[in-house]
């Protein structure tokens, strides 16, 4: 077992945690304002796809990254209009965004690159650069975001309003805060951050976009957010925990054998993170308190 706990495992965990950190922080803004964001998966995909296309066309990862963020913002705006303006059910509208982003990139890449669902590969020279033994610039950015988000949520007027709107929108409204405008801002911010997580997948970790490449990471990020009780610093640890677990499942495969000499079945190894999540959620975390107004559209009293 000890040979598994190496420096490379830590680096692998950091690489795997990076998209989760971006996305979970995005979810934090949205959910703290009282809007459930199950669309994180779809927002990651739109960020990943747009970043890959823009980087391929412009041969510049930084511009590509920004384009990804912009696409995330636009998609999140559509989601915000549906759930804030028209008070659509947040889970259903979020799921619709996820479905849309499973199909839309496929349609566009089919029309533009004559391929179903994936973009051409981007040359290594035009990807987000790596530092210190393959830690991406995006990973460093993700870690820097934690104190920034903490500061924004707890030390700025915007953060105070955000928390107030998520806990008690009527009181916030009475205090003169425009609840829905703040929720728009929060949801769009969540789109930008989730798209950053997706962009890291396509132009940081890999070199192309493939259909549905987020592979459930948006939902893992949501789980990390709940595990962290919607607080920025615990989000970092929750995401690192999931990253470490995934890194471990990668390292364990084929390295540890059963006493009988056979390999441990892959299926068994792959359930380890999820089983641990259930144990941790049920046993150690205690009561997980969501923002009180989560999922409830705000209607101004007339």
């Amino acid at each position, binding site marked *: 077992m000890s040979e598994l706990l190496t420096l490379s495992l830590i680096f692998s965990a950091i690489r795997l945690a990076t998209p989760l950190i971006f996305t979970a922080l995005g979810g934090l803004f949205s959910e703290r304002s009282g809007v459930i964001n199950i669309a994180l998966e779809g927002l990651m995909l739109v960020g990943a796809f747009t970043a890959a296309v823009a980087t391929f066309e412009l041969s510049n990862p930084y511009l590509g990254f920004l384009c990804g963020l912009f696409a995330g913002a636009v998609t999140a705006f559509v989601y915000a209009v549906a759930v804030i303006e*028209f008070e659509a059910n947040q889970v259903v509208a979020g799921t619709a965004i996820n479905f849309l982003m499973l199909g839309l990139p*496929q349609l566009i890449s089919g029309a533009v690159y004559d391929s*179903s*669902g994936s973009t051409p590969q981007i040359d*290594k020279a035009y990807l987000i650069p790596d530092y210190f033994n393959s830690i991406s610039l995006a990973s460093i950015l993700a870690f820097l975001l934690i104190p920034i988000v903490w500061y924004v949520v707890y030390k700025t007027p915007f953060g105070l309003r955000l928390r107030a709107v998520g806990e008690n929108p009527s009181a916030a409204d009475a205090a003169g805060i425009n609840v829905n405008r703040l929720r728009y801002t929060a949801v769009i911010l969540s789109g930008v951050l989730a798209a950053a997580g997706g962009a890291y997948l396509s132009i940081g970790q890999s070199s192309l976009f493939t*259909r549905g490449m987020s592979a459930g990471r948006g939902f893992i990020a949501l789980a990390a957010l709940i595990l962290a009780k919607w607080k920025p610093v615990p989000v970092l640890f929750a995401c690192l925990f999931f990253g470490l677990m995934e890194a471990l499942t990668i390292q364990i495969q084929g390295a540890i054998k059963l006493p009988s000499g056979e390999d441990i079945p892959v299926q068994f190894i792959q359930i380890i993170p999820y089983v641990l999540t259930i144990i941790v959620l049920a046993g150690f975390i205690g009561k997980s308190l969501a923002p009180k107004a989560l999922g409830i559209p705000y209607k101004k009293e007339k």
Partner: protein
Amino acid sequence: MKNAIKFLFAIVLFWTLSFANLSCSSSVTSAEEKGKIKVGIVFDIGGKNDRSFNAAAWEGVRRAAKDFDIVLRDVEPGNPTSIEPAMRAFAEKGFDLIIGVGFAQGPIMQKVAIDYPNINFAIIDGVIFEDDGKTPKKNVASLVFREHEGSYLVGMLAAQKSKTGVLGFVGGMDIPLIHRFATGYEEGAKSVNPNIKVFPNYVGVTDAAWNNPGKGKELALSQIEKGADVIFTAAGNSGLGAFDAVEQYGKGANGEANKFVIGVDSNQNGVKPGFVLTSMVKRVDNAVYDVVKDVVNKKFEGGFHVFGLDKDGVAYAMDENNKKLITPEMIIKVEEAKKKIVAGEIKVTDAMAN
């Protein structure tokens, strides 16, 4: 007013969704198409331009459509549940040959082929039996490849190239078809160097495993950490992550890459020139072309059509991109083994046989 906008929004969303998920070409039969042989092909989830397995099948039918006077229609299902309706739609319209691409369509074709006994079917990577589970179905041509034989040869090349004596294998979904690649590869490697170590890893256990290049890259990196210097991928788009991983280790002083990857299905030598040792190609295109030709010439035969090294159904790819990476001595050794496999002197274990 608000309700009307809500309603409109729902309609727009619904239409976008249905368009995004099922891009299906029209299957209207016009008068001038009467009397011609009609061929329908249903692709796998990867889609017809995946630059790999499905693309090879598409290439095969298109070549056939050029050479013979046939009507060709195709469907790219957006999700696994739309495969069966697509197949049945072709059957209802009286197509002469319906081709299913990929092992996942096996159970579906099993049902459809029973309902339409007078229509010819062909399936790639799958086998369809009668109800007794033994006799091959008469109206279905099961096109299967002896991937283990081709994998054996690339395993030999990998073992000869490896300096560390450690090899990696990145599989997509953990299924018997992919085990076939892994065992053939390992046996080939061991035939060159009995002490060689092979790490077989899989991306996942669901069909998302074919589209997760991030995880493919992490698996390849962890294998390289354990000493692997040649990695064989059989993981669809996830395998492209392994290509990125070996590129990250750059080229040595002599201008040759430090780590190598072996491509799969199509010739992927040109994906990252210099880093790709070879590709284990599966001539799906030829197999599909031949079955269309048989239908046109009224010589269609159901049952198993097995494509091994003997018919060049599987092979290792050599071209300009990897000419310098593989020495003539390596090729001589591999060609010898190829002859022995064809003659039956070397038996490569088929992981799907039991």
